[in-house]
């Protein structure tokens, strides 16, 4: 229990300490300007639209994926998990390649004599959010479909239900139970959007609060305003979270989605074509942007300047350090939470803290001790570790509960405790979820463009920040290459850790 108490203290100190520093600096919400209220409104509105669109579009995709079997279906379902660990800047690069000014879509529109569309602004922010969250919503709903008891489906089949009757008696009740949670999970994610707003948004019409914090901090160096904005962001998150506590949030980022029985696929070529088109469009929406980045970037990899490789090295170090820290916090918390619920809350706390608020708070706390630039990487490690903690904890908890229920008495009766218990029981039994959690943490940290943007000068840049700089300088070939490198590294980290975990026990 002692390690868990220490981990709890660390999380509390980080989340509440920075919040207190921010609140102290802000001295209320007085420093807010009209533009900041507009940012608050835009933050909520874009999150509402993004969540609604993602969930609405995910319903037909998940339904088709659930009731059809075809070669490559498993790969497609796995692919739906990819955006969760895809760095936001890379996704933006991909969307620019497809929907940008010189992108495929605009070329096609021009060829048809139609006016070109712009990806920048509110539309682009929502587009990027749907790109990230449509797959997440699809997985969450697919989970819901697979959770319909097979006995219920057998009954439906034996009664000769039509697709309409199946929809009414089985699928709609499931959706009523699943949709609110999925919607809210995505709403929460979009509420704290920074990297997407930074790259595609901006201006009076498309600035989120997180982006406004960054601008107040970085351009105006108006700490009071940054702090007031921070309080506003936390208040929004807490409010949304308070609502979500009433609705069970589903957990769809985990592995293993392919077990349960399936609804009998409705026959008839109309429905079959419809399902095919829906899945094809969703897959293309997902694959084409990523492929566009790789096609353009991979050949240019060798020409990347040294500074980009150096940034990649820094990012790797940051990712590995953040992963180690995440596991160091998550493992004791998960083991303790298996006995006492309150430790679960401690590990979930970072969800209400926005990265930029954490960053601003750490800056306020530490500015007396060291120069911001020297703090950039350690602060990034700490913030990334904190942000990955809730996901790592949720990955570990079910296995930790099983471990506790199945083997705690046996271990106690044999006097297995301390380090021997960790080595002989805990680590081997939890290897799989530990590997998965490590992979998630490493990939999330690798691709994170958040708090680092507050502090870093070019000599301290991580790969995502370097990529952002390349995009800002319109060096698009280098940017595509850097984006490819970042994508490959993020996925490789996830894959390597996940693999390590699933083979540790074999």
């Amino acid at each position: 229990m002692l390690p868990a108490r220490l981990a709890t203290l660390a999380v509390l100190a980080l989340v509440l300490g920075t919040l207190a520093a921010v609140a102290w600096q802000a001295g209320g919400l007085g420093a807010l300007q009209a533009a900041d209220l507009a940012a608050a409104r835009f933050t909520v509105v874009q999150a509402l639209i993004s969540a609604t669109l993602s969930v609405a579009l995910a319903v037909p995709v998940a339904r088709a994926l659930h009731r059809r079997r075809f070669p490559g279906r498993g790969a497609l379902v796995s692919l739906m998990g990819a955006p969760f660990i895809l760095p936001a800047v890379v996704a933006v690069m991909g969307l620019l390649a497809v929907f940008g000014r010189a992108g495929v879509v605009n070329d096609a529109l021009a060829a048809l004599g139609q006016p070109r569309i712009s990806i920048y602004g509110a539309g682009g922010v929502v587009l990027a959010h749907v790109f990230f969250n449509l797959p997440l919503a699809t997985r969450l709903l697919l989970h819901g479909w697979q959770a319909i008891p097979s006995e219920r489906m057998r009954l439906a089949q034996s009664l000769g239900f039509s697709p309409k009757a199946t929809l009414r008696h089985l699928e709609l009740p499931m959706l009523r139970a699943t949709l609110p949670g999925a919607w809210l999970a995505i709403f929460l994610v979009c509420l704290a959007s920074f990297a997407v707003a930074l790259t595609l948004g901006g201006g009076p019409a498309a600035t989120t609060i997180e982006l406004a914090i960054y601008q107040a901090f970085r351009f105006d160096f108006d700490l009071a305003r940054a702090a007031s904005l921070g309080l506003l962001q936390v208040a929004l998150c807490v409010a949304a979270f308070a609502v979500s506590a009433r609705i069970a949030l589903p957990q769809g980022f985990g592995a293993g989605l392919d077990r349960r029985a399936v609804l009998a696929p409705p026959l008839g070529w109309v429905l079959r074509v419809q399902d095919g088109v829906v899945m094809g469009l969703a897959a293309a929406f997902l694959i084409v942007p990523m492929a566009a980045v790789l096609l353009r970037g991979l050949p240019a990899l060798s020409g990347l300047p040294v500074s980009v490789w150096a940034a990649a090295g820094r990012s790797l170090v940051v990712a590995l350090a953040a992963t180690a820290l995440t596991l160091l916090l998550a493992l004791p918390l998960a083991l303790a939470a298996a006995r006492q619920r309150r430790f679960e809350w401690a590990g979930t706390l970072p969800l209400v803290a926005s990265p930029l608020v954490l960053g601003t708070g750490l800056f306020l706390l530490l500015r007396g001790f060291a120069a911001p630039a020297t703090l950039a990487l350690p602060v990034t490690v700490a913030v990334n570790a904190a942000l990955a903690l809730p996901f790592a904890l949720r990955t570990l908890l079910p296995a930790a509960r099983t471990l506790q229920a199945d083997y705690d008495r046996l271990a106690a009766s044999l006097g297995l405790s301390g380090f021997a218990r960790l080595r002989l029981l805990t680590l081997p039994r939890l290897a799989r979820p530990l590997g998965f959690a490590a992979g998630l943490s490493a990939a999330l940290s690798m691709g994170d463009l958040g708090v680092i943007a507050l502090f870093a000068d070019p000599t301290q840049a991580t790969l995502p920040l370097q990529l952002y700089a390349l995009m800002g300088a319109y060096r698009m070939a280098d940017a595509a290459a850097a984006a490819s490198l970042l994508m490959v590294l993020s996925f490789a980290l996830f894959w390597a850790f996940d693999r390590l975990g699933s083979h540790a026990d074999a």
Partner: protein
Amino acid sequence: MLTLENLVLTQDEFRLEAGFSVPAGARVAVIGPSGAGKSTLLAAIAGFFAPASGRILWRGQDLVGLQPGTRPLSILFQDQNLFPHLTVAQNLGLGISADLRLSAADRVAIERAIARTGLEGLAARRPGQLSGGQQSRVALARALLRARPLLLLDEPFAALGPALKAEMLALVSEISLEQGTTVLLVSHDPADARAFAPEAILVADGHALPPQPTAALLADPPPALARYLGM
């Protein structure tokens, strides 16, 4: 000698009182209706359930407050008696050293326990690759290696067929005779109790009664036991 002195176990509505001694080397069955508290009684002796009051004495030493692993006993549960990710040899090694630092002499002892319980050639296997009977033997072999003077069996053989179960109980009897182990066996099956244990503790109506001759108890059961036995 195991002595339960004014022992009271409570949990919500549940209450069980016990006050008796079991002589060293005895083999005693623990019988009674479902939910009467047989497993709770064993859990309290093993250190998984803190008594509301009273003492649990082994050779005059109070066990209450001791960690389960340091009590002078081994316990086998209904299931999950082995770690599935460790080999048979490693599972047995845990009976000697909890951090698996084993000397050459320890390895010889493990070999001997393997031979004694008829597990030759299975040392490198994992529990998942063994039959139910073999798994029970591994758990028994580990208890053999731990060589604690008290052995608590909380229906570890309930999932085995009648013949296998009888075989296991015979093995337990042999070990008990060799090492002078005191054995408490929770069982649902009157036949087991009769064959294995000359004496039985009846747990019913909130009381665990002192050991009494098994045959007589089963032949003329008090009402609660009679209902449970269907007599």
